């Protein structure tokens, strides 16, 4: 342990500090910096040689005076202290309390940059989680251990949706131990308050660990925050056997902080100024969810991100979609029509749905019903388009049925109240209600047995 302080800082640029002539400093080492006013800042070594060490300073390098900056290398990676006491607590991006209570005292400390899970150690996530939201349960089902982000945009009710998921998520016939880890990066006070109240009112507060970085907190801290949160989640899931739901918001602020540091380091940009390693960096975070062989707990991850200018091809949603196991996309158009939750069905997807639904999990018709609704809605949207060009009166009777379906689907299936908790049965029955507006031969994604059993005209 080197207690020695160095006063050889030679450059400060962006969030980076260069320190000259410090021998044998480890890559990734934690750093404590004391500025000329005696205030401490925290950092981490991101490049090291005997001539020069580059330190990323979490609080930024503003107002540092190179002459009177003291740098101490702690000879340990960035870590978090863990104990069951973390439940009910609030921390910042460095794992320090921000709820005016004492720090966690524990012998158990873990580096926040965990080694990757061995793919051979994973088990495939399969257990259906009922969220009570038809567009999710019926069409984009969530399973335990999945990573399923919400793609949103400014002004859309992603927070309300995330809170509703936290409130309502349950496994049918299961009351095993359940915790929430909430990671907020660059959020406003209103948003942070909203979540706190949402957790309090649903009575889960004592089971929640919060990691919060506000919009006016140092951006660099956003880089360690999700890793702190996931290390805590892994502890709860795989040491304490809990089923953990991790909600992270807003991943866009995280990626922007990463870009800021990358630019300061002079990293080669790939798209829109984001570094080429944004994909790998996000993957390190998202891939920490899942299920592990012979472990009872699980980590289900629901990251929230806002799509800059509503653009789903922007690098942040794009790379996220390439890593996560589907996405729930919110639509401004539906929101403007006052439909809550404004889930845009077409681009939404759950990749793990196929193994978590159907006969032994939800109901035997579920996979086909979901496909059928998708196919009809896609066709209905085309018809709506056509109607807007040639006028609804010009449509054939068959096409008019599609048009009516589009409205009914949005108003009855997509739309629901914020406190409305629909069972999967209710969701599927509602679906058949809508499907029954079509003659059986128009329904080619559901099979003949299912039609005989559930279609109103054949009953």
């Amino acid at each position, binding site marked *: 342990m080197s207690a020695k302080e160095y006063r050889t800082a030679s450059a400060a640029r962006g969030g980076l500090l260069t320190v000259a002539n410090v021998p*044998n*400093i*480890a*890559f*990734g*080492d934690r750093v404590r910096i004391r500025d000329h006013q005696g205030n401490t800042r925290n950092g981490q070594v*991101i*490049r*090291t*040689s*005997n001539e020069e060490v580059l330190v990323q300073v979490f609080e930024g390098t503003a107002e540092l005076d190179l002459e009177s900056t003291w740098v101490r290398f702690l000879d340990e*990676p960035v870590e978090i202290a863990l104990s069951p006491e973390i439940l009910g607590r609030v921390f910042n991006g460095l794992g320090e309390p921000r709820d005016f209570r004492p720090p966690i005292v524990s012998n158990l400390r873990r*580096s926040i940059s*965990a080694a*990757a*899970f*061995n*793919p*051979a*150690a994973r088990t*495939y*996530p399969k257990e259906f989680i009922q969220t009570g939201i038809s567009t999710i349960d019926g069409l984009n089902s969530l399973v335990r251990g999945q990573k399923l982000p919400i793609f949103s945009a400014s002004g859309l009710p992603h927070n309300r949706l995330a809170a509703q998921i936290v409130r309502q998520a349950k496994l049918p016939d299961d009351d095993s131990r359940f915790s929430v880890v909430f990671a907020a990066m660059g959020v406003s006070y209103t948003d942070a308050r909203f979540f706190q109240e949402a957790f309090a009112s649903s009575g889960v507060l004592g089971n929640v660990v919060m990691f919060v970085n506000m919009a006016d907190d140092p951006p660099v801290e956003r880089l360690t925050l999700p890793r702190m949160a996931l290390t805590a989640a892994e502890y709860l899931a795989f040491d304490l056997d809990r089923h953990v739901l991790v909600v992270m918001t807003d991943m866009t602020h995280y990626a922007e902080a990463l870009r800021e540091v990358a630019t300061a380091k002079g*990293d*080669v*940009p790939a798209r829109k100024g984001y*570094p*080429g*390693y944004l*994909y*790998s960096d996000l993957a390190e975070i*998202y*891939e*920490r969810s*899942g299920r*592990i*062989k012979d*472990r009872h707990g699980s980590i289900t991850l629901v990251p929230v991100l806002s799509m800059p200018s509503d653009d789903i*091809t922007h*690098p942040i949603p*794009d790379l996220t*979609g*390439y*890593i996560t*196991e589907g*996405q729930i996309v919110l639509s401004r158009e539906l929101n403007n029509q006052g439909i809550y939750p404004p889930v845009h069905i*077409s*681009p939404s*997807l759950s990749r793990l749905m*196929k193994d978590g639904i159907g006969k032994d999990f939800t109901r035997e018709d579920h996979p086909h019903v979901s*496909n059928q609704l*998708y*196919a009809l809605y896609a*066709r209905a949207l085309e018809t709506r*388009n*056509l109607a807007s*060009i*040639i006028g609804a009166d*010009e449509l054939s009777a068959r096409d008019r049925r599609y048009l009516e379906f589009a409205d009914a689907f949005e108003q009855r299936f997509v739309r629901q109240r914020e406190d409305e908790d629909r069972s999967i049965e209710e969701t599927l029955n509602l679906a058949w209600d809508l499907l029954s507006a079509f003659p059986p*031969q128009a329904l*080619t994604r559901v099979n003949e047995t299912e039609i005989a059993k559930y279609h109103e005209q054949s009953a």
Partner: protein
Amino acid sequence: MKQAEKKGIIQDINGPIVTIKLPGVQNGEQVRIGSLGLYGEVISLEGEEALAQIYESTEMVRPGEPAEGLGHPLSVELGPGLIGGIFDGVQRPLEEMFLKAGDQIPRGLNPLPLDREKLWRFVPSENLEPNMPIIGGARLGAVQETETIEHRILVPPTIEGELIELAPEGDYNLEETIGQVRDRHGRVHRLKLYHRWPVRKSRPYQSRDNGVEPLITGQRILDTFFPLLKGSKCAVPGPFGAGKTVVQHQVARWANADIVIYVGCGERGNELVDVLDSFPKLKDPYTGRPLMDRTLLIANTSNMPVVAREASIYVGITIAEYYRDQGYDVVMLADSTSRWAEALREVSGRLGQMPVEEGYPAYLASRLAAFYERAGRVETMDCGKGSITLIGAVSPPGGDFSEPVTSHTKEIIQTFWALSKELADARHYPAIDWVDSFSADVGTAAEWWHESIDRGWEKRRAQALGMLARDAELSRIVNLVGPEALSSAQRWVLEGATLIKEGVLQQSALDPVDTFSSPEKQFMLLDLILSVYDEGAALIELGVPVQELAEMPVLARLRRCKELYDSSQTDRLEAFRNEALKDFKDIHSEYAQRGEQTA
């Protein structure tokens, strides 16, 4: 490897790129660095300093720690025991690492890829005798690796000379000598059941050959519309969620290949678990054996260190070449080549190399081409013909096919399965776009289909594609002026195209029947739907309203045929065909009669 080990020290650590002072080390040589002994490889040299890329995280490694050169480039072990396994990007056995070291992959651990204790029953080749001249790649004998795979033991490609000894039939482990060869310098080489080969170097063969038969994947849109020959190169580009991985899994499941190598390169861990869980339960449709008996996985998931990701596809293709050299038809799937290219970009960025497009180095195109060039059908040294079919997924940012990796890849490959977001959003799976996709192998594939299945294949295929093109054209008109502008015949084309889309092109990977379609079934479905269309078109000439045809109950059934009858039930499909066509005949005679009456 026996030479004195080279020792040095670490000077600078910049993430996975480490500068070491190591005089005498060679470019490309393997190194171990730090007190943990992390593995890596030298990627450039300057004076006494070498730049190495490290396959594992360098957290808490410091300047001044030791480094050593291992005297050989990144190589893989080739021998029995590979099939059925799962290895990481530098061929570490993941199953064993899990048992030894737990849930997470520890650093500095390097268990041997192949089991040294297991005994294999070696049967020497009959045509060999002591004192015969022998070449590299010659078949010394064989062991039964899995129930379906006879693993042919080859003389390492670099060894040539006189066979001085060959072991008799018996049980041997990997380290026992099964033969000896004296080279022309008089050096004696002991041969074992395995040997090593550097992954960045392609393995030799006698000559290249043209592809002659299609790889049958059991997927209708692939086999019937955009066929791929054994030994061809193919790309599957598409935005996220369009179905690249499902296409690759389907090919891995159902292709009529001898060996399947699946490389998960920078993608999801759970997708490999899916393969590990499902393949042992699925049966190879050609041999009836569990699919894992012919499959091997290389896994370097997105969260694993990026440098090993770069290596993973070379590890995969080298193993593919090894089985090709045994005379097998190998399929290698790489999901995704974009992640490999990104790993290349990341390393190049850290080296401060000049980026040319979107941060990619100038050598991206040539590296891609050199990699794909390792696919092909060849005359092997001693095992007849062998082939590698290479199918790479491409993940273009924002789904934009004009980006560097997609556009360079497109110039290299022969078959292009382009996935479309619009189709995927409408849950039209596989979401392969019939306009953007292409195959340069249709001519050769046609010969096979005509010989083995039906002489009408090429004509029917062209007719279906023609109708799909007409459908797109007519839909544009409808979107401008409404459906009333179309004639009855044109509206029947729209109906026909819908039947092709729903009854032939759409194929659910999740449906137990529809997931695989034999070539016979593929052609029967296509021919049936086009016959129905032709019959209908004739009726429309007679004045039958389109509406009446479109509402015929038999059409709903027709759309479901694909999942009602499996590949062995072609007789039932035939019976349905007769029934369906009879319905049309009945309408025909009805209208013909009416016509006579009014005449």
